[in-house]
């Protein structure tokens, strides 16, 4: 068995390697590739946070787009300089506190998370009493309400025009950094007594309750933490796209995260990380199929949206043949990693022996 100290050393080494990779990527890749990586990292944050409430706690939540929207607007309003905000709010003048407040990116991201968490706390108290599909519908409704509010509060959100010219603060350091922090915290939570309680609720609510687990407290806690990171991801998203409007946070956004989650496997953080990048890569590299293509004599016309059809098919196949997702509930650990490496080498040895 590996010692914990060793695992810590390896984790630090891995983080250093990751930093070098980020540095190289940020400086050597072209903006298009960097953007895909950025989106991938944001999806890691979104996917891992949704995994907490859906994969680990078993509460079917479809509200992630709503929490992202809250985060995106909060960050946008905080990082934009006051004179610029005055300029773009042409429908209605911006309401008072927002006209003067201005904050650095990090503070803005934290505020985004906190506002999303507050919203989750308030909505979670009544809504998390619902179970299964009903909870899904209620949280979906919440996300839609947020979007409609964003559309109809012109003196805060600039209505359907959205907010433009948000400074492009988001780079790989931020997106990967936030993803690492998210994974660290959610992994820490899941691998604790509280995490066991969450999984107990997922497995059997009645049994969990009679062994003394307070359902409301644990569900709302999980939901709130999940929303916090969705809000932060929303803030990153706003400063990556530089333009946000209510249409960016339609249900399709939640659906994208859900694909990542199911692809990677519910309850597997490792799977979510891999699936988040895989999804964003595929989304880009499958672009040609929408332009129309030819296989032998058969000509496929250009059909916009064919990429999403492809994903739907992939999802269907996955649900039918491998419900546990790509990683099948497997979780990365240094111990497993070195066992795997060991196996690779020990496999080679017998072949050497047999030849001699």
């Amino acid at each position, binding site marked *: 068995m590996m010692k914990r100290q060793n695992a810590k050393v390896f984790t630090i080494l891995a983080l250093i390697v990751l930093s070098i990779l980020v540095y190289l990527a940020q400086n050597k890749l072209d903006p298009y590739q960097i953007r895909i990586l950025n989106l991938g990292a944001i999806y890691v944050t979104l996917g891992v946070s949704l995994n907490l409430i859906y994969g680990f706690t078993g509460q079917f939540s479809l509200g992630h787009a709503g929490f992202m929207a809250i985060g995106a607007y909060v960050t946008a309003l905080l990082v934009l300089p006051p004179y610029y905000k005055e300029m773009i709010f042409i429908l209605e003048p911006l309401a008072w506190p927002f006209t003067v407040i201005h904050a650095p990116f990090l503070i803005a991201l934290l505020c985004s998370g906190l506002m999303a968490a507050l919203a989750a706390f308030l909505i979670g108290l009544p809504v998390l009493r619902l179970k299964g599909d009903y909870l899904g519908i209620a949280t979906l409704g919440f996300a839609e309400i947020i979007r409609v509010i964003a559309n109809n509060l012109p003196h805060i959100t600039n209505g359907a025009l959205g907010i433009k010219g948000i400074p492009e603060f988001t780079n790989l350091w931020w997106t990967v950094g936030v993803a690492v922090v998210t994974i660290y*915290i959610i992994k*820490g*939570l899941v691998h*604790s*007594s*509280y995490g*066991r*309680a969450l*999984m*107990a609720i997922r*497995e*059997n609510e*009645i*049994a*969990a*309750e*009679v*062994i*003394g*687990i*307070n*359902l409301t407290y644990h569900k709302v*806690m999980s939901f709130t933490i999940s929303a916090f990171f969705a809000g932060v991801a929303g803030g990153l998203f706003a400063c990556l796209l530089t333009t946000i409007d209510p249409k960016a946070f339609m249900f399709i956004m939640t659906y994208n995260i859900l694909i990542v989650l199911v692809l990677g496997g519910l309850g597997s953080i490792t799977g979510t990380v891999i699936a988040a990048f895989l999804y964003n890569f595929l989304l880009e590299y499958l672009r040609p199929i929408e332009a129309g293509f030819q296989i032998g004599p058969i000509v496929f016309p250009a059909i916009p949206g064919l990429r999403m059809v492809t994903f739907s098919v992939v999802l269907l196949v996955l649900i039918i043949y491998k419900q546990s997702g790509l990683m099948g509930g497997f979780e990365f650990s240094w111990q497993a990693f070195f066992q795997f490496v060991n196996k690779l080498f020990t496999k080679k040895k017998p072949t050497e022996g047999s030849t001699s």
Partner: protein
Amino acid sequence: MREILNIDNITIKFGGLTAVKNFILKVFPGELIGIIGPNGAGKTTIFNMITGIYKPTVNKIYFQDTDITGMKPDKIAKIGIARTFQNVRLMENLTVIDNVMIGFHLHLQSNLLSAIFKFPGYAREEENIYQKSIELLEKVDLEEYKLEKAGSLPYGQQRKLEIVRALATRPKLLLLDEPAAGMNPQETKELMRFIQEIREDFNLTILLIEHDMRVVMGICERILVLNYGETIAEGNPEEIQHNPEVIKAYLGVEATYA
């Protein structure tokens, strides 16, 4: 001596159906009481009312002089009542050891933050919980399966695991709902010994629902017989075995012509 559990003439109705009617039971510390009766007599409903899953329509239940009627199940667990279920309810996809460790969660001192960041205080507590869980598993010879998924254990083992999980919550009163169901005679014998043992070791008061008469007659000091939601007899095993009404309703007439 004051009673630990005082069920004061409770009645519960589901719509027009009266599931349990005028049920009275005073349980004294250290007692082992059996509740028997035909299927649908309302035995499990009584357990559900004691553990807060149902609320009696009329009258109240007191545990150590506290009114627990309508209290939420997790609160009731916290003040010292644990139970098992007729159809085993384990966290099937979690490991055996995790199933036991979950039972300790309600007494966890560390807050969320120290649990996430694994502060020394939490790490000590977790280690302690782990050790105690191993000790509990050793008691039922499940220690070697600690990393198996709970759902993959044979049924009899699952029942034992469920009892151990209940013990992890440090109960004063333990409710066992048909613990011997699905066990072979050998396992049943072991179970009887195990129940006696935990009763001594943990200073438990036990309520037991069971259809296996060897278990009930073998270990219970006092037995209640239910039929159609009403108590039709109460007494020690000897009295119950010879009570004509119980024989008619439940035990059946056996070899009277022999």
